[in-house]
């Protein structure tokens, strides 16, 4: 997981560090932008410009949080510009009124949560991972047991162990999660 030292490496023109940063942030930023523009190519283009903007301004950053904040801000501004330049803007606005979606803030939080949970869960063994995923979707223990063809008690045990593992795992994510999951 990335930390402030990593950002300092990027600031010193370390392209490998930049590549790692791209890996750490790309998916969550893509989700964030895509949920607004609903177009894969436009989302990719916006993120391309966003990452390049960061690379060009890399000397200005020293903390991981500030980079993350910058990336979200730049990509959101580009989404706004995209809508401003786009003919379908009004249609999108109309659609948004009918289908109230998350505000940008809430969308950002969702992206962050999903990225964190996704990264933590990805390290779990396959069956445990599936239990957790279903559990996070608020499925009942009996439903999970049915779906995975295991006993409810096994589900409970896996869940308990999984949360314990996640807690331990997440507590080690210094820098990104400096004070939670402790």
């Amino acid at each position: 997981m990335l930390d402030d030292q990593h950002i300092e490496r990027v600031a010193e023109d370390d392209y490998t560090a930049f590549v790692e940063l791209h890996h750490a942030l790309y998916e969550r930023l893509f989700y964030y932008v895509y949920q607004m523009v609903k177009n894969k190519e436009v989302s990719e283009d916006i993120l391309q410009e966003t990452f390049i903007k960061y690379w060009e301004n890399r000397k200005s950053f020293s903390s991981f949080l500030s980079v993350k904040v910058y990336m979200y801000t730049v990509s959101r501004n580009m989404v706004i510009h995209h809508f401003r330049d786009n003919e379908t803007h009004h249609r999108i606005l109309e659609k948004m009124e009918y289908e109230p979606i998350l505000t940008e803030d809430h969308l950002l939080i969702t992206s962050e949560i999903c990225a964190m949970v996704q990264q933590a869960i990805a390290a779990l063994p396959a069956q445990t991972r599936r239990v957790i995923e279903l559990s996070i979707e608020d499925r009942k223990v009996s439903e999970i047991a049915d779906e995975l063809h295991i006993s409810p008690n096994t589900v409970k045990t896996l869940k308990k162990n999984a949360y314990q593992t996640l807690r331990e795992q997440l507590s080690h994510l210094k820098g990104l999660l400096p004070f939670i999951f402790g």
Partner: protein
Amino acid sequence: MSEQSDIAKIISKVIMRIELTADERTLLDEWSTDASHRAYFEQVTHFLPLDDYRRVTALTDESAHLRRITAQIHARRRPLLLRMLRIAVGAAAVVLFGLLIHYIIGDWQSAFDTPAVTASSTEAIAPAADPDMPPKVSNRRVILKVAGGKTYSLGQIPSSARLGGAQYDVSRQMISYDAMPPAKLHPVDALNELAVQRGADFSLTLSDGTRVWLNADTRIKYPTRFTSGERRVWLSGEAYFEVAHDAEHPFIVSVDGVDVRVCGTTFNINTRCHGTIATTLVEGSVAVIPSGADHETLLTPGHTAEFAPTTGLLDINDRDIQLYIGWKTGQYHFEKITLDDLLNEIGRWHDVKIRFADEHLRTEQFTGVIGRRFPLRTILLMLEETNYIECDMHDGVITVKEKQYQLMK
């Protein structure tokens, strides 16, 4: 926005059923006083759209995205470059007659042995060029030596002027000679000499109307007026000739080891071609006459004769002529040339020295097109885009080494 990041962490914790600290609880409570935040919190803690997150992120290819970013970072000016190339192609079509002489020379600076006596007292050395800008078409490094040995450093001359028998046009950056110079002022067959140093280029119109474009690191000697039966010039370096047609007075370019004879035609000589002198015929006909040979070899258009002075062997091929004449029209074409040759050529344009940190890179082969006026930095980035080499520029020296980082994990 860092607040959202904190809130995200706290909500993750709630979702993971991990107990909150008192501070976190306070922060969350404050945040949740807003009704919309409260509604969002209820929604996301009961249903985290993790499947949606996976479905959306699966739409995109992270590696491909990174490759695009890398390419763009390493070639920021590409749209501009493509535009320049198109212009250069258009210009190539209007060139009707030409001759390119491309001659390899060891240490050209020391070969130009006449000390410069400049109009002002000191010899100006052009300041190091800005690597981010197109190379300046600077005539500061162009030296004209007229009959009698007097030399002019053209950069010292602020406006158009008559220099011996030559007319110097400062705005067009060229020297020209009248067809009929006042004979009483200048010996009719006086030899002038023009030296174009590294980092410069220049053009010249001879008294018969033949035009000559001189690449960096090139020297040419010619009479101010052609009076004998032949029109002979002496060249070392690289030049592109548009020879004025005159069947009765053949135009001869003498380079070390070969004479190339023309009446009015288009051809190209490249003597920096892997140690050979390559003569490429574009149009008309041309005779290649190796020194001491009792025969001449005629070329047909589109063919190149490569003569190796050391072995005396002459070989004829039909490679793309752009590989030989491209530099004149603004684009330098190269095909399977060694990195050593390529960087030496670039070094000539920009007056930089090349150092190989990894010697084995010298023999790596490259194929492509590079604009003659591309900023040095751009050229280096284009080379680095191969993801094979890294170029480091410091104090006018480019250090080339093998690329270290692994792009993909």
